[in-house]
């Protein structure tokens, strides 16, 4: 089972190493991890997608809380949350299929951010299934390379985590 953890940490050097080190040392699997500064410049937010049953999640949460620089850990699994991920996909394309690819991008409300004689880069935002769906549709054209940010998430409504 996959869980999304929202982790507020001190914005100090080495904190990413501590978090990542804890995961690898204790043998927990990270599906994705994103980190960036928050509205408070002394605090960063990590969004960590982790795989495991409830016992694993409990241990992960406790071990994260043990790190001095971790301020708060919230499991977003069962809460009302919005999730987004951004991907950039570089597709093989030329004059013959350019418009077809643009149509697909349109359907997904994705944007073309680079066009070259033999390639295009498409920027798409959404949840995981949406990104997987567009990836699948673009694959027949030939995906040259692709990058995903990993999931970020926030709780809906006025209350924060």
């Amino acid at each position, binding site marked *: 089972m996959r869980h999304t953890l929202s982790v507020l940490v001190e914005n100090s050097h080495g904190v990413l190493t501590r978090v990542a*080190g804890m995961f690898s040392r204790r043998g927990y699997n990270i599906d994705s991890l994103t980190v960036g500064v928050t509205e408070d410049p002394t605090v960063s937010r990590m969004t960590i997608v982790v795989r495991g049953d409830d016992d694993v999640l409990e241990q992960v949460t406790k071990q994260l809380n043990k790190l001095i620089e971790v301020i708060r850990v919230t499991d977003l699994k069962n809460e009302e949350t919005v999730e987004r991920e951004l991907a950039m996909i570089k597709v093989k394309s030329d004059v013959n299929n350019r418009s077809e690819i643009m149509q697909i991008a349109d359907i997904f409300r994705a944007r073309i951010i680079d066009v070259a004689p033999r390639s295009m880069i498409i920027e798409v935002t959404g949840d995981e299934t949406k990104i997987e769906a567009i990836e699948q549709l673009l694959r027949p054209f030939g995906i040259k390379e692709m990058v995903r940010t990993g999931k970020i998430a926030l709780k809906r409504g006025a209350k924060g985590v």
Partner: protein
Amino acid sequence: MTESSTKMTGSRAFIECLYREGVDTIFGYPGGVLLPIYDEIYDSSIRHILVRHEQSAAHAAEGYARATGKTGVCLATSGPGATNLVTGIANAYLDSIPMVAFTGQVPTALLGNDAFQEANITGITLPITKHNFLVQDANELPRIIKEAFHIASTGRPGPVLIDIPKDITTAEIDFYYPEKVELRGYNPTYQGNIQQIKKAAAEIKKAAKPVIYAGGGVISSDASTDLKEFAEKIQAPVTTTLTGMGAFPVEHKQFVGMLGMHGAKYANYAIQESDLLIAIGARFDDRVTGKLQSFATNAKIIHIDIDPAEISKNVKVDIPIVGDAKSILENLNKYVDKAQSDEWMNRVAHWKKEYPLHYVEPSSGEGIKPQFIIEQISEAAKDAIIVTEVGQHQMWAAQYFKFNKPRTFISSGGLGTMGYGFPAAIGAKVARPDKIVFDIAGDGSFQMSSQELATVVSEDIPVIIAIFNNGYLGMVRQWQELFYDKRYSSTCIQNSVDFVKLAEAYGALGIRATKKSEVRPAIEKAIASGRPTLIDFVVECEENVSPMVPAGAAINEILDLEKKE
């Protein structure tokens, strides 16, 4: 800056911070990048003990901490000095001992350049410290030291490392020592949840066969008297872990000895039959539980621990109470009554009689059984602090010494570090000069730290090293005997050194005992000498630690291994 701020160098600030933390002793070894700090130590009132290997500085700081409850402090230079601390830091981490380790570092401008004697010690110690710091701004040094001592000594204690680049020690700063620590990500829980405490009390009242399983946490929270009151109130048998030795008096009628792999049979039987296991400051280590699926299967489990991450880590817990053992026991004692356990205590007493710890006397009558030495030390120096190395002698010390007070047994539990005992004994003796301090050692373990004979002689630290010299790396030999068809691969170390001459070469007193009748006089001579003393006890070579739970077995599948003569 406040009114109390004054200008001084980083190294001067270092000393000022240690004064404010009440540090009276540090264990260390100088080096290039530490020159400014050592220049300040030269004039300070802090006692600096020069060890002969940095690993001993870390172990000694730990011994000091365990003997007193205060935070131990060690200091080593950059690169190899720092990496030599690593084993000692890991040891303190696994046994949750408060320690602050300072390391010198190359100047900030050279960081990451593979400079001479550079090692990324904060990276290296990341998984074995409670927290660590690399000081990057000299003005932050006082705050960091304050935080380090706070983190090391509160909550679940542990080692904290501070890496100080050389230019930080020479920079001029506005010294200001914060009064309070503000760490928003660190708020250990001390008070146990009262609802959980009441639930536990109700469960205790219902229990027919309760057992108390106490660990090192009882000692670190100074909860021994509360534990005694609790145990006497509910009339339950008490077993302790290796690191919990001394938390409950061995001679108390409710004490059932150590549990686990080399625990007493009756302790393991009691655990396996119990219907309520009350774990206090213990962490269900694999050496304690044996086969996890078969551990205390009939028991509900109450787990009192300050570290929430220990709850249900290995064994599913029914009633967790997170907090300080002392505060929780004080509270619990207000609610508990005697469990329905007359019959149970009688049954446990019967086991205790039926399956005592025992060993077979040597047939010749003059050979020395290692267990006998422990009994003799226990009689001759009953209030001594017993520090051990790791191996068979360690188990015999835990089994046969009659510990009656906390902080009198100091041993490497979690990490199992050979070479730990001698330097830890140095730390303990420096902390408690009023106490007789024994290092119970094996001939293998002792040789991992024997260079510290120079330290004890030059610093006049009269510890007594009792070497149980069987010519083997005994614990490994025991496993080879039992599970590898007596193929003693690389475990025979007979005649590797004349320990008496070695002691004398350093200027310590050396005594040898080869016969049973020489054991007690040797112990008494060592105590009376008031000097650093090494006793070379030539013991029976192939004596085994008994009883023993084979690896992977349930703890009631416990074997007698005594040698028939």
